[in-house]
């Protein structure tokens, strides 16, 4: 059923085009060493800053490294960080949101207060503060990004659970003698999960931008591991002599994020859950 549904989404122009680009990016991330024509750290100083040509389709950077290979490897960094961070965020956020929305009381008040507080700061600021505390590196930005997006999923799940808790079938299940665990995991979360998953998918796009921004500041993956943000950062120095160094990683980010947003949008329309997502 789910497969046939996805097939239907892919068969719309918007869903199909965005799915194609996403498959390409995911393939790059999974099979980077096989697809990339050169190694991502292979330097060739005499051939630095060459413009796109037959040997280096997207040109080379200031160390003569092949830009196409680095972008393909960069997809791996970006997607790993974004997907891991958002997955952690969704799982933890759903747990907090479900407990807060179901039990209410003091826990709910504390969770809501913290969520509202973090809601008023931009994600980038929260991530920067956290990195200042825990340090730089790939693991650090995963943790920072996952905490930065936690409020969103907690809030969405809490709202869903609070609405679903009023449904008669929940009362019926309680009347059968079900405990809290059964009610939350067998009824509330399965019914609340769809909008949260779609919001999570859209957040992956935002997280890729956040990862690139942190990479641009040199806070993410450390050299020579390529990250799209760090590549753009090194391109700023050569922007007038070798504009392709900043242009192509930027295009990779834009294309990926636009595709994620378009695909997410197509999913929202196909699932008819736009109104349930309004809270985010």
């Amino acid at each position, binding site marked *: 059923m789910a497969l046939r549904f996805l097939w239907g989404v892919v068969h719309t122009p918007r869903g199909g085009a965005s799915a194609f680009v996403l498959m390409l990016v995911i393939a790059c991330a999974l099979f980077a060493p096989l697809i990339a024509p050169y190694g991502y750290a292979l330097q060739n100083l005499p051939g630095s800053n060459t413009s796109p040509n037959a040997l280096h389709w997207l040109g080379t950077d200031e160390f003569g490294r092949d830009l196409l290979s680095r972008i393909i490897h960069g997809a791996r960094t970006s997607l790993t960080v974004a997907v891991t961070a958002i997955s952690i965020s969704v799982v933890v956020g759903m747990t907090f949101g479900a407990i807060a929305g179901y039990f209410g009381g003091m826990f709910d008040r504390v969770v809501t207060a913290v969520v509202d507080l973090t809601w008023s700061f931009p994600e980038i600021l929260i991530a920067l503060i956290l990195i200042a505390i825990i340090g730089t590196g790939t693991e650090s930005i995963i943790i920072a990004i996952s905490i930065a997006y936690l409020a969103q999923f907690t809030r969405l799940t809490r709202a869903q659970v609070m609405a679903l808790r009023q449904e008669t079938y929940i*009362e019926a299940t309680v009347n059968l003698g079900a405990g809290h665990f*059964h009610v939350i995991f067998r009824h509330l979360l399965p019914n609340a999960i769809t909008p949260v998953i779609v919001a999570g998918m859209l957040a992956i796009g935002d997280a890729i931008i956040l990862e690139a921004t942190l990479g641009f500041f040199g806070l993410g993956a450390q050299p020579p591991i390529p990250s799209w943000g760090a590549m753009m950062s090194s391109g700023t120095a050569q922007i007038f002599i070798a504009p392709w160094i900043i242009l192509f990683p930027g295009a990779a980010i834009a294309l990926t994020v636009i595709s994620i947003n378009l695909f997410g949008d197509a999913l929202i329309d196909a699932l008819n859950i736009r109104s349930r997502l309004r809270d985010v």
Partner: protein
Amino acid sequence: MSALVSLLGLTRDFSTGSGFLKARRVMRAVDDVTLDIPRGSVTGVVGESGCGKSTLGRLVLRLISASSGSVTYDDTDLGTLSPGAMRKMRRNMQMVFQDPYSAIDPRYTIRRTLLEPYQVQRTPLPDAEARLQELMSMVGLNPDLAASYPHQLSGGQKQRVGIARALALNPSFLVLDEPTASLDVSIQAQIIALLEGLQRDLGLTYLFISHDLSLVRYFCDQVVVMYMGRVVEVLPKARDTPHHPYAQALTNSHFEPDPTRRKQVQILKGEIPSPFNLPPGCAFAARCPAATPLCHSDRPALESASSGHQIACHHPQG
């Protein structure tokens, strides 16, 4: 006939949350209800919307807790049970809900819905398929529907699923909370016939909550009339003549399909009091044609008039 379920002084208050510069307001949804529900019979609860009859049904099953008073099932005070023991106790007492459209999880198939009671109660079924077939045929559902989702069923079919789920654990007591109110008239009759047959065949005890008086008269043995959370009259036989002015007005408002027997409907005048601020006397006094100053100042207690007949009125009529 002994009582299967006994209510003693059952009371439930709801309060609006107190906020900044906002006083806490308390509403008494169910006020001091004492009632015996005889084993193997149908007890009807009637009253207008908001009179507390649905709250009463949920209090009896402890789906909401009482502010005071007790519910006794088969000589066991439900209030003394531990949460675990109460969950076990729920096998004996089930509910059929008013809205069949939201009473089944939209992600559950009928099969999963009907087997959920056994999963929840951790009672292993030797032959789940056979029990499923049995339950579905008991409520007149085609067993082929087992793989369907609720959105593929009609309202009447969904209500049959709701009844089958309530019967799954072999309960002896069912609360029927307006089980036909959201169904078409033709389907209503089928559901009532089904419930009637099940009650007779399985020897069930029903608490039937409804605002449809003709239905209650047809279906019930004992009838309880509620007004603003209080019991105003208990009729031991559904066809007995009511003596409380409110119960009479309720009876008169029943619409007669035969035009030659149709009479003038007596419309009550006056305001329904705010449930947050009930008058000191009889709650019905402001609308009552027979009210005297006594009714406005003193609240009439529920007293036995004749065997089984109870009434809370200073001036019983007719």
